[in-house]
């Protein structure tokens, strides 16, 4: 965010650079079973975002020192492939991917019934193969589907969507330009069955009314994406 308010990204009729209206999502498609060697896996293609997630476990917890006597530990990793961004990304962890891994783990720990697997580890691996804004949301959504596909018990799946503000207009599901030159970005992780939240971030500048509007967009979008997630899981493997 910041200082790019003069880039025109929405016209007077409310049409955005990619032709969407303010409340429209990018096209989302989800497939399960895309990583045959994993216990559960999913691919989410969201606009030109392309993410895969794999789940391994519950398995023996290694190293021992991170083991918990009363519950499983969730080992979540978010990573971007070197060719996922316009400028090549150097392989390996960076501060950004560590933070996203952490908040993703925090979100998933709120829904996975970890106490059912004491002393175990469940590994969640999120790989972004092509990035176009909102990869943390796409990754978290993919991880939820992969966990469900692996048969890990959860109270609900997390659906994650980001809304924001461009040229003073609140819009749903920011794309690359809107994320780079917009005024605010509000990613949320929503439990669609209860409307509760397990993940929330914001950067930018929103008035209380704008904040409410972005919040409502995210809630609506989450219901749409949730249906696609359920259909993917019911539809069987790719």
């Amino acid at each position, binding site marked *: 965010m910041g200082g790019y308010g003069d880039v025109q990204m929405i016209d007077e009729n409310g049409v955005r650079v990619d032709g969407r209206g303010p409340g429209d999502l990018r096209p989302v498609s989800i497939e399960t079973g*895309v*990583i*045959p*060697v*994993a216990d559960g896996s999913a691919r989410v293609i969201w606009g*030109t975002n*392309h993410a*895969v*997630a*794999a789940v*391994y476990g519950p*398995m023996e917890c290694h190293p021992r020192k991170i083991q918990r006597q009363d519950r499983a530990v969730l080992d979540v*990793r978010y*990573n971007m*492939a*070197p*060719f*996922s*961004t*316009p*400028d*090549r990304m150097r*392989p*390996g*962890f960076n501060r950004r991917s560590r933070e996203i891994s952490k908040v993703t783990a925090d979100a998933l720990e709120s829904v996975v019934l970890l106490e059912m697997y004491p002393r175990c580890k469940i*590994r969640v*691996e*999120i*790989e972004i*193969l*092509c*990035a*176009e804004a909102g990869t943390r949301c796409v990754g978290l959504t993919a991880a939820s589907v992969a966990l469900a596909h692996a048969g890990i018990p959860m109270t609900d799946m997390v659906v994650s969507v980001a809304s924001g503000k461009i040229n003073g207009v609140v819009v749903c599901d920011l794309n690359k330009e809107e994320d780079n030159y917009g005024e605010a970005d509000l990613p949320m992780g929503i439990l669609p069955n209860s409307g509760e939240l397990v993940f929330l971030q914001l950067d930018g500048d929103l008035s209380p009314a704008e904040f409410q509007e972005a919040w409502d967009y995210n809630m609506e979008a989450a219901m749409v994406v949730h249906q696609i997630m359920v259909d993917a899981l019911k539809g069987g493997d790719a």
Partner: protein
Amino acid sequence: MAIPIVPQLLRAHLAELAENDERHDGRARWESRDTELEIGILRNAEGSAKVRMGDTIVYAGVKFQIMTPYPDRPNQGGLMCTAEIRPVAGRNWEPGPPSPESIELGRVVDRGIRESGCIDVDNLCIIPGEKAWQVILDLFAISDDGNLFDAFALAGIAALKSAMLPEVRFEMSDSDRPLPVSKIPTMCSYHKVGGRFVYDADGREELGGDERIHITLGDDGHVHSLQKGLKGIFTESEFSEIMEHAQSRCKELREMVLNAEEAG
């Protein structure tokens, strides 16, 4: 990679099958798994490919950077090839710095491509001694069920073959041009399982097998890279047997790269 426990029962089972010239998944000795190749699937890469061989799935992506040419080759660009096997690819792969296995993988694939001379590095020079294109080929495994070498080599050359130099994005001209790739080197790998070499071993055969040999052949059947890996001994006659198979299989793989079509 965590050192997997080598199951003695699996070894014994594979050896027993080998006596009747059988494999655990019903394939013949020189038979490959179903192999699929798709190109142009990842929008942010200048060239990309996905290869599926049975349950092994890998991606390759090409990116370009501007580099200063090496002092002894002021008129040439460069090629860099890295292989990453992320923990997403299997339960035995762990996070952390690149493992010796993945470094070996990247280097063997790199040698096959580099030594075949398929990329005209003179064509990548922008200003002699000052600026040149560096081609970066990143190989990325997401599902490891054996024989990542062949999957990486196939995805790698297919991604290079479809790559476009991003001259518009770097404000150098009005249109992008294809990366000049004049040859198609392809790799065939053989693992010794139950005392004899087989082609395209899967994860179980790698686990319960011994040494492996990788052969990269160019368009004219010339050898461009060889690598023997893991503990084991092999004879001249064994080598000429696999070389004979590699000569015919590499031609088929080359056809596959030539016929690969851009994804929609």
